[in-house]
């Protein structure tokens, strides 16, 4: 079967398993909610100020939620060593990577869909710029975090202290993407600047790093 077909089958399997053990989903949704609430206590601005800083706050909150999701990406494959079954088969490694990345992407987007309205409520946010631009930025930015995050999560399964390894190696590399997301969001919310450059930069970032991940994943998967 082709790469895309196997990726789809793997994604479906993961979604099915995720759906069955609802513990993971529920605890992460609750965690995302807690993050929003805590941030609201910690940063309690007026409505005008909030538009300036909301971009940063929201993305840091998303980042934390994403890391929690990413950390358990490969956990299921390590139980019972079932990853060996995939590696031994003729299935292409990139299909596995795509399935995991897209799965993480969908999951983090769901978290964002939960957290964003809460932020809007708690900070009385109203966007001056068009909302569709916010959605584009969110999608591009989430992919940027998730594609590298899935790859580095795979790296970190072969390390000690793997829960701390992932954010440790992910954050520095993600800095330009984070900057882009935050500034673009702020630009759109305040309407003070055009986010076009950032959107282009995020797109470039996404393409470049997706390509690198796909090139190097097989090597990392089979490192034993």
């Amino acid at each position: 079967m082709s790469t895309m077909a196997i990726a789809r089958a793997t994604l479906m399997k993961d979604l099915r398993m995720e759906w069955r053990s609802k513990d993971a989903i529920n605890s992460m949704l609750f965690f995302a909610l807690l993050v929003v609430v805590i941030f609201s206590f910690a940063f309690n601005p007026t409505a005008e100020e909030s538009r300036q800083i909301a971009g940063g706050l929201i993305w840091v909150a998303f980042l934390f939620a994403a890391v929690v999701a990413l950390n358990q990406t490969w956990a299921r494959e390590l139980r019972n060593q079932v990853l060996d079954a995939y590696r031994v088969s003729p299935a292409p490694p990139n299909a596995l990577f795509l399935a995991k990345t897209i799965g993480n992407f969908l999951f983090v987007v769901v978290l964002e869909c939960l957290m964003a309205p809460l932020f809007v409520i708690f900070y009385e946010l109203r966007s001056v710029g068009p909302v569709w631009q916010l959605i584009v930025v969110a999608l591009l930015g989430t992919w940027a975090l998730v594609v590298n995050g899935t790859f580095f999560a795979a790296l970190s399964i072969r390390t000690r202290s793997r829960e701390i390894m992932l954010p440790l190696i992910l954050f520095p590399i993600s800095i330009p993407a984070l900057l882009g997301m935050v500034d673009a969001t702020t630009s759109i919310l305040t309407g003070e600047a055009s986010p076009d450059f950032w959107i282009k930069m995020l797109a470039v970032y996404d393409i470049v790093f997706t390509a690198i991940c796909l090139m190097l994943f097989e090597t990392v998967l089979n490192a034993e």
Partner: protein
Amino acid sequence: MKFFGRFAALRGVSATFSAGRLYVVLGDNGAGKSTLLRVITGLMEPSQGSVTLLGATKVRDVAHRVGYMGHAPLLYDELSGMENLRYFAGLYGIKDGEVSRKAMLMVGLDPDLERRVGQYSQGMRQRLSLARAVLHDPELMLLDEPFSNVDVRSARDMAAVLGRVRDQGKTIFVVTHQAQLMEGVADEFVHMAAGQIAKRVANGPTATAALVGEPGIPRGESMADPEVRTTR
């Protein structure tokens, strides 16, 4: 050769194995049996040396003709038996659900059972793991401890199944601590110790005595129609 840090799990294993035989790999813990299997499947790269498998130097090229059953179950606990098998069948390009059904029936499990594998008994899990390893009808099967935690009767059934599969022309490697189970079906016993193949004994009247003997000086024999070759 395979090093883990400073531990030489395999050293100087140089051997040739033939098609259509059932090899039973024996040895104490730490002798390198599991590592040998993992190197043959390509899950581990040898620190030095090479593996030639079914005529190919890169194991990935013949992955669809190789079946592996690991020490661990290699199954998803949250899915049912059929769901597991259908997924793995898909990895080998098999879209027909019938193949998975037949595999489950062959190992004595009910394909319509919706229970999650996590709730299976040990014996059932072993059997499903075996089904997963062979559902794509591989020519070469590598089974690591297929009888662990399985009751004697099921184990005898499994051994008989393996014998029949070998009779169809497949090559099988079985790593086990329970050599007696394989007495009826094995072609050859491969004794390993301290990372090397100590001796190879063809099955026959003297084989039982050899089973309790001591490992000798390492050297493999070459046979006709080599199919697996691991060289230093």
